[in-house]
Structure formats: C-alpha cells, structure tokens
C-alpha cells in the first residue's frame, strides 16, 4: 500500500512539474472563453456592419411591391429576361429575382440568378419575403383581413413544473437542462479519453525505456498499474479544479471589467430601443418575468448533486477505461501499434457520446437512455447527460453500483494482461495472444 502511494506521488509529480502541465492548465480556461468571445464579437460586428444585399427584380406578374429592408435593397427592372440577365451580369450585385406571371393557387417558375452560391440563410430570407407577399395576396382573395388573422393566432407557453414524489413543485426548463447536460457529457467523454490515453502513453514509455523490469522487481505489476492510474487521476482532478476556479474567476472579472453584459441583456436593449415607449413597458414586464423565471430555474437545478454525480462518473469512467488503456499500453511496444487496440476500447465511449446528442438529451427518460445510463461502459457519458433532467434514485444507485462493479472487473482483466505484457517486448500481439496472457497462471 505504501508503495502504491510512492508511485502515485511520483506519477503525479512527474506530470505536474512539467511545463506543459502548467501551460495547459492555465491556457485552456483562457483560450476557450477567448475563442468563444472572439466568435461572438465577430458575429456582432458583422451583423452591425452588414450591408443590405442588392437584388434586381424582374416582376412580370406585376403583383409584387418590394420594400427595402435591413437585409435587402430591391432594384426593379423591366424588359426581356435575357436583357435583364445581361445587365445584371455587368454588376457586382447579389442576385436577380425573376417572377413570371403565375397562378396564385400554384405559384411556380420563380427563379433566382446569382453569381456565387448564396448561403442557405439568404435564400430562405428571400423566400420568406416572397411567401409572405403571396400569403397576403391570398388573404385578400379570400377576403380575410389582418385583424381576423391576428385573432386566430394563439401562443401558448407551457410553464414546466416537476411534481416530485413528495408533491413539491419545481420549475424546470428543458432548454437550459439540454445545454447543461450536453456540456457535462462532452466533458466526461473528453476527460476519460485524454487521461486514459495518458495512462497508455505512460505504460508504453516505461516499456520502451526498459525501466519496467527494475520497478516490478520492487513492486507488484498490479501495484505499478494502480499507482499510475491513481496518480494520473489526481493530476486530472487537480487540473479540473484549477480550470473551474480560473474559469469562474476569468469569466466574472473580464465581463465586469469591460462592462459587458450577457448576450440576452444586449438583445433586450436593442429591442427596446426600436419599440415605442408603450410597447417597451409591456416588453419589459414580460422580459423581467422571463429573467426571474430563468434565475428561478437555475436556482432549482441541484448543482451540488450534479457536481457529485459528475465527479463520481468522471472517476468511475476513468478507472473503468483507464485500466483498459493500461492493458493496451502493456501489450504493445510503440504508440502506433497501440492504435489497433485503442479503437475497440474507445468504441463504447464513442457510442455513449453519440447517443448523448441523438437520444439522451432529446428523450432523457426513454428506454434507450435508461439502458445506456445503466450499462457501465456507456453510463459515465449517458448518466451525466441525463442527470439534470432528474433521474429516479434507484436508477442512479443501480448505475453507480454497476459502474463500480464494472471498473473492478476491467481492472482485474487489465491487471492480468498487464503483468505479462509489460515484460514482453518484440512480440507480435493480437487478441489471441492477449487471451493467452490473460489465462496464464500467476
């Protein structure tokens, strides 16, 4: 036990004392907000400075009247299509819109000529303009006025309330939970993969530098493996803690320093400035109601529980996969060789990751989500992806017990391969060989 502790210490210090650890630990929480901030800033700047696109219009039906908007300026053309096309070609303008005479019930033959492939967004914006005009024409035809139409529109905003077993009511909001859970699931996936591969590299390193036989004459191979796994886990936890601290500190202080506001607030102000006073009051009322609601939901998310569950599944998933990565490292002589075994190991992790987006955050209580969050190989990503949506306690306990059982099992299997593998070099390893190593008596 004392020796495992020595190895844990050594593995921890080896990594923490490296410059690359310091750089990664400090830069990652700075780089990500910087990248996201940069992209947001560019998007805002672009939206501000975006010029309206010039669209030439040849309207043979004569039923359209175009109003210039923020996005488009319309130039009405007349004459034959070929002539207009030729004229358009001489300009640098965005598009030429051709509207032939058409049946209102079945408008067809409308075309758009452009020089470059336009973005989907712009095409659909232009289509919206056309569709809304045709709709208006149809309303006119059926003698429906705008007021009647507005009367038909109904908007319902379901207030989501979770009724707990004790009958207590809680606000909830799927949107926020969706984002939170996707983020946590991705973090688990990345952490398990990154630190698992570090274990593998560490083992390969010991094999290629040939120190391993010296070490196993002092400690049991299993102690060496566990020492390495725990040592790297503690590096991960330290790094994770620092990231959270720096991330929280930087986000709050930078935003405060530049007097920036959250995007929602900024949007709200823009909207306000465009509305007249009467409407503004109304909007403010609903908005502030929205903000309180948002804060209420944040307040109701059990962050302590989520943090605990996240750490548990991070450690559990890491231990489960870490042992397997150690076994792969012990079986091969080079990192290149490791790739063939790495894929089958990472496959269940990848399945969990893809299911996170395809299934879990969409239907967190469905049977597929249930099974994925119970089976130990996918449960770290899947359960963390479900947790904020509320998971029945018995499911959580079952999943945790199975995960603990799972990593004890993989550690046992990996330990048997590891003890033989680390002393073998220059062997051509395939699955049959691994099975044979596994079967060798102690």
């Amino acid at each position, binding site marked *: 036990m004392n020796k495992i502790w*020595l*190895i844990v210490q050594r593995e921890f210090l080896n990594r923490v004392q490296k410059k690359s650890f310091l750089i990664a630990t400090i830069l990652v929480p700075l780089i990500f907000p910087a990248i996201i901030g940069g992209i947001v800033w560019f998007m805002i700047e672009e939206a501000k400075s975006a010029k309206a696109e010039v669209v030439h219009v040849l309207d043979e039906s004569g039923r359209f009247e175009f109003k210039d908007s923020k996005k488009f300026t319309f130039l009405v053309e007349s004459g034959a299509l070929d002539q207009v096309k030729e004229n358009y070609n001489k300009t640098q303008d965005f598009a030429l819109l051709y509207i032939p005479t058409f049946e209102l019930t079945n408008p067809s033959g409308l075309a758009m000529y452009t020089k470059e492939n336009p973005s989907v967004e712009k095409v659909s914006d232009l289509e919206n303009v056309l569709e809304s005009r045709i709709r208006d024409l149809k309303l006119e035809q059926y003698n429906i006025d705008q007021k009647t139409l507005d009367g038909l529109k109904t908007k319902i905003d379901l207030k989501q309330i979770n009724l707990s077993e004790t009958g207590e009511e809680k606000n909830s909001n799927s949107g926020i939970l969706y984002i939170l859970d996707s983020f946590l699931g991705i973090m688990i996936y990345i952490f398990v993969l990154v630190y698992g591969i570090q274990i593998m590299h560490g083992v390969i390193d010991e094999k290629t*530098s040939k*120190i391993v036989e*010296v070490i196993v*004459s*002092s400690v049991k191979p299993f102690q060496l493996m566990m020492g390495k796994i725990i040592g790297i886990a503690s590096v991960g936890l330290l790094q994770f803690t620092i990231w959270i601290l720096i991330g929280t500190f930087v986000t709050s202080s930078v935003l405060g320093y530049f007097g920036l506001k959250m995007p929602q607030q900024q949007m709200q102000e823009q909207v306000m400035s465009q509305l007249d006073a009467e409407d503004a009051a109304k909007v403010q009322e609903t908005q502030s109601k929205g903000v309180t609601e948002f804060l209420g939901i944040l307040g109701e998310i059990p962050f302590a529980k989520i943090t605990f569950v996240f750490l548990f599944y991070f450690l559990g998933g890491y231990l489960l996969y870490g042992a397997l990565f150690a076994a792969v490292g012990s079986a091969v002589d080079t990192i290149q060789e490791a790739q063939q075994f790495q894929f089958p190991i990472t496959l269940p992790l990848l399945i969990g990751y893809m299911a996170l987006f395809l299934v879990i955050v969409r239907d967190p209580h469905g049977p597929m989500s249930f099974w994925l969050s119970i089976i130990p190989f996918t449960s770290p990503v899947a359960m963390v992806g479900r947790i904020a949506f509320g998971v029945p306690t018995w499911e959580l306990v079952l999943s945790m017990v199975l995960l603990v059982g799972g990593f004890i099992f993989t550690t046992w299997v990996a330990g048997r391969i590891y003890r033989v593998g680390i002393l073998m*070099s220059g062997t051509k390893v395939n699955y049959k060989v691994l099975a044979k190593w596994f079967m060798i008596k102690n």
Partner: protein
Amino acid sequence: MEALVAKGVTKRYTEHVALDDVSLTIPQQSIYGLLGPNGAGKTTLIRIVNQIINADAGEISIFGERLAEKHIGTIGYLPEERGLYKKLKVGEQLLYLAQLKGLSRSEALERSKKWITKFEIKDWWNKKVEDLSKGMAQKVQFISTVMHEPKLIILDEPFSGFDPVNAQLITENILELRDNGSTIIFSTHRMETVEDLCDHVALINKSKKIVEGTKKQIKDTYKSNSFEVLHKGSFTMNGAAEMVSQQKVEDDFYKTILKMNAGGSPNKLIGDLIAVTEVHSFIEKVPTMSEIFINLVKGKSDE
C-alpha cells in the same frame, strides 16, 4: 548458510517448459555464474527469484528463509533489459528507486549522495537521464541496484554495453561488495567474466540444469587429462599415454600433446617422459569454461 537454495523449480508456459526441475545451491559470499545459451531459462529463473513471476512448482529459500515478499529489499536486481525514466533527474530517480526497495527518504538521500560521490558523478544530480551519456546512465543503474545494500545481488549481463573503464569500475565494486558480505549472481554468456570473477558456476541449457559446482570442480570433471610437453629431442611413447600430436618448434625442440590413459598419474607420466626426452615444460591442458560450455551445449543438443 546458503544465500539461495532452489529445489525443483519448474515453470511451464502453454507451449513450452521454461524451467524443468532446476535445483541450485548458491553459497553465501560467492560470485556465482549462471551460464546458458539464449532462451535456456536463465531470465525466467531470475524473475522467479525476484518474485516478478511465480514458479509452478519447487521451492526457493533465501538465507534460510522461504522466499517471500519481505525479501524484495534483500535483493538487488540489474536486468538485462534495463533503463531509467528518461525525463526524471538522476537524484529523483535514485531516491524513487531506493524508496521502492523500502528505504526511507532520508536513508535514500544519504546513500545516494555517498554513491554519486564514490562514482564521481556528483554534478549529475540535477540532470535528466536523457541528457546523460550511456556510460553515465549505466553508473546510475548500478547505483540503483546496490543502494539499498542488498545481501543478494543479481546482475543479468552486467557488462553488455559497458566501456572497459566502466566495466573495470563495476568489477571493482562488485568485488568490494562481495568482500563486505554480499552474494553475487551473474547471468552471462561472457566467458571471460566467468573465468575472471566467478567462483561457482551453474550451466542451464534447454530449461534444465546440466552442471553445478565450483569452477575448480567443474574443470576437474571435464578435463581431458591432456598435457602439453616442451622437450628437446623427439620421442615416441606407448602405454602410459597416447600421443595426440608432436610438432617441431625450432631446431631440436618439440611440442607434444599427450593424453594420459585411464589410471595414470601426472607424476608417473613425468617419470616416463624423463626417461625418453629432455623435458623443458610440462603443463596440464585445463579446459577453459568456454570450451566446457560449448562442448556441453553442443553435446546435449546433438542428442
């Protein structure tokens, strides 16, 4: 008391037997040569003694006690495939390896300082191993093997890759350790090492022990009873010995190889020789370990 006694040690793998009923007796304070061709089972035996792998059958006792986990600190092992953590500094490396052998941090610090001073590599304490020359790394490896003052030191091909100066330094230190009470096991196929250093030898071939004993005993067992005689004036001999060859060296001087017949004695042979020629020298042709080794291995593999 014996440093190490192995009785009927056997290790089987699925396709072959690595060690077949091997018994050894290694006396205390001896330098014991474990010989054998590649793949004979030497490394398997050493790994079993180091408790890296377990034997399927047989018993090993070390200084009178049954081999157990507590003996890890009693043994110092320099494997054939050896290395160091490349990114770790020499000092940290020595401290870590010694602590794994059971020394406290302060003991490890004190002894590693002593050794690096002795090996004149004090300045290397804060250097990373990847910046060391091969010779320097070998010194560090040797220190890490003996730093915890093991009573049994096992060296697997210790001189492979050593330059003569380092080999000399290591040899001196090995002898010093032996004089201070340690027992040393050499696993090697370098016969000059065996000839110079070892007092006891065992030969393992094809997972079986073929011979074991003191170097003298083995040489006596496998000597051919041949003698090389330098003499003046040619002669022929019948009866006491068989003439293998006779060649002229210069003028009237000859060199003759005689093989003594069973039951004869060297003294009697000299007497016979003096009667027929003027004897200038009479030397028993003792086989080298190398010759014995090759003969035994080849002889066995012919079977």
